[in-house]
């Protein structure tokens, strides 16, 4: 009885020892060298794995950062400047300054401005609705309101507003990963340069129709009247395909264009309330 136990212990120990020896040599032979800095950089990244940098996840981004000669074109929108500076410190490189961005919705077609002309009760996904037909309103460019962007957002930054039927983006939560941009079948979401105090001024419309049909479909549609372009002193506004666009890198937030817009399609957000009109005019005259 005791001899059986003994034999078992000895034979198994021998087997284990032999395997260990073989495995040691195999491990030496097939060792893969991995730069230890990849782990370090990965630890510095936010671990959101959102894909906002263009890579599949934070690990791939870390590998790319370690491999890259310079940081140009590599940016973690979630972590922003502090994270990139930390990665640069680990790797002994310089992180270029990248302006933080935030998502904005280029449509303001709530039911009060854009009346419903039909009702849809099929599969409630924007990508399906868009391939089927124009949507519940007469605007073939605007928000379909089925919330593909909301489902795409992994940061709880985007929620559908039931009253307006449009998504609302909370600036403090948005990390500008671009998931909603990809999810929107009508390309309504843009990542715009962030400004002080989350101030924003942008054309909240994507309608490329001529003025008449655009206005008919929605009261706050851009009709490409070029008034904003004319009033802009900084050449920040371009008009293409019957649609105005404000370049966030050139815009100085003078807010003149918003006042000119006859359809109120230019939205100004997070500004202090405007002074009474006469004073404001006097002020501009003094300047």
């Amino acid at each position: 009885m005791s001899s059986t136990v003994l034999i078992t212990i000895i034979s198994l120990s021998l087997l284990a020892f032999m395997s260990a020896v073989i495995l040691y040599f195999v491990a030496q032979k097939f060792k893969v060298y991995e730069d230890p800095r990849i782990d370090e950089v990965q630890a510095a990244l936010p671990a959101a794995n959102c894909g906002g940098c263009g890579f599949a996840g934070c690990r791939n981004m870390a590998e790319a950062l370690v491999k890259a000669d310079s940081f140009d074109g590599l940016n973690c929108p979630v972590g922003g400047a502090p994270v990139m500076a930390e990665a640069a410190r680990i790797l002994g490189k310089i992180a270029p300054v990248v302006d933080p961005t935030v998502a904005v919705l280029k449509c303001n077609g709530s039911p009060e401005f854009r009346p419903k002309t039909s009702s849809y009760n099929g599969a409630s996904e924007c990508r399906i609705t868009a391939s089927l037909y124009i949507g519940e309103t007469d605007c073939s460019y605007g928000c379909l309101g089925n919330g593909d962007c909301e489902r795409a957002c992994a940061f709880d930054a985007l929620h559908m507003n039931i009253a307006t039927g449009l998504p609302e983006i909370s600036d403090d939560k948005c990390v500008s990963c671009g998931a909603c941009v990809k999810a929107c079948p009508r390309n309504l979401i843009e990542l715009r340069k962030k400004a002080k105090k989350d101030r924003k001024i942008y054309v909240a419309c994507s309608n490329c129709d001529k003025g008449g049909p655009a206005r008919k479909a929605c009261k706050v549609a851009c009709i490409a009247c070029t008034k904003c372009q004319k009033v802009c002193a900084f050449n920040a506004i371009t008009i293409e395909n019957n649609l105005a666009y404000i370049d966030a890198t050139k815009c100085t937030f003078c807010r003149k264009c918003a006042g000119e817009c006859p359809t109120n399609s230019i939205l100004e957000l997070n500004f202090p309330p405007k002074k009474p009109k006469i004073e404001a005019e006097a002020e501009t005259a003094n300047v």
Partner: protein
Amino acid sequence: MLKTFPIGGVHPPENKLTADIPIEYLPVPENVIIPVSQHIGSPANPVVAKGDTVKVGQVIASGKGFVSANIHSSVSGKVSKIDLAPDSSGYRQTAVFIDVEGDDWLDTIDRSPDIVRDIKLSPEEIVKRCLESGIVGMGGAAFPSHVKLTVPSGKKCDVLIINGVECEPYLTSDHRLMLERGEQILAGVTILMKALKVDKAMIGIENNKPDAIAGMTRLAESFSGITVHPLKVKYPQGAEKQLIKALINREVPSGRLPLDVGAVVHNVGTAHAVYEAVQKNKPLFERVVTVTGKGLTKPGNFMVRIGTPLVKLIETAGGIPGNTGKIINGGPMMGKAVTNTDVPVVKGMSGVILVPGEESVRERIRPCIRCAKCVSACPMNLEPYLLMSLAERNLFERAEAERVTDCMECGSCSFTCPAGRPLLDYIRLGKSNVIKMARQRNLK
């Protein structure tokens, strides 16, 4: 036993309300909107300008490339503008707007009622005439017919199949055409046979149209090579691949065309249009449209000029009933709801159905209960529940491996689903993404 296709299929309530109502000519409207893209393939290029006077049958937009079709004016009058106009999906497309003045036809069109049987044109000339006359498949898909009549070298067609199935519920336009224009259709079939150089043509008609079967069989006796075959009533028998399987028991492989098994399928409406184009020199500018619905006071089958606003048709049929929930362009199974009654009648529009409110609402979506009814109903041997899940989760590579592109969007799966799941909606999404993926792959 009547012939039919063996796999899948459903039998929705037929509701052929207008089967006994003769075709009525709709008065020419005051203005028409003629879209330049009424067919599968590249849109035609407008060749008229604002202010031009046009005659009935004149080319107003010429086809661009091989898979395209000419567009002809369906009225005489003045071109008021060339602008964007919403199509039945609501998206705006280029169209020619014409204000009607009189009804002045081109002199080249033979308007006599005589039926001309002997064919003077050679096969090549017939194909050319179809191309010039803008003939497209009249069954609904609107695929340019001259493409189907051009047999590529190395392939051989030995039988022409004529689709008189009309398996969609409600629609009766092909049925009426067979009853009233049987001889013209058969003369058209003879022309198609000559163009394809075949000596055999088979007309498939579902058994719910006994009068059409009897009439066509009697008429076919005086034409050589044409036989009429009654088929069991089953949707979607009017689909090319199903009809080929039912009639000649050949199976078109996945991703291939009927021509790969030696068959070409044309609709009876197309045969009629080909007859008019070849023997009467009349391009395709009018068609039969069934206007029907349970609430309509005067439903019927109307011969309508292309470009007539839908609202004119509905007015003639008694106006929109108060409880209408949806207006469908096409059949109830494959048709699509229109967003606006100002949209024009196009070449591929076989019917307009006004569905009452309570019937137009889709079922509430509930979880899949794994009953596999959709699998049994699918005529293409696919697994709709799986394809839907794959598309929902963006797994398009797997959807491709599951042959999502074989789906012809007949809707049998959604029709049969006891849980009200929007199977076809998602399969269509998967299909379009897979096609996009394949196109990108080919570019690389």
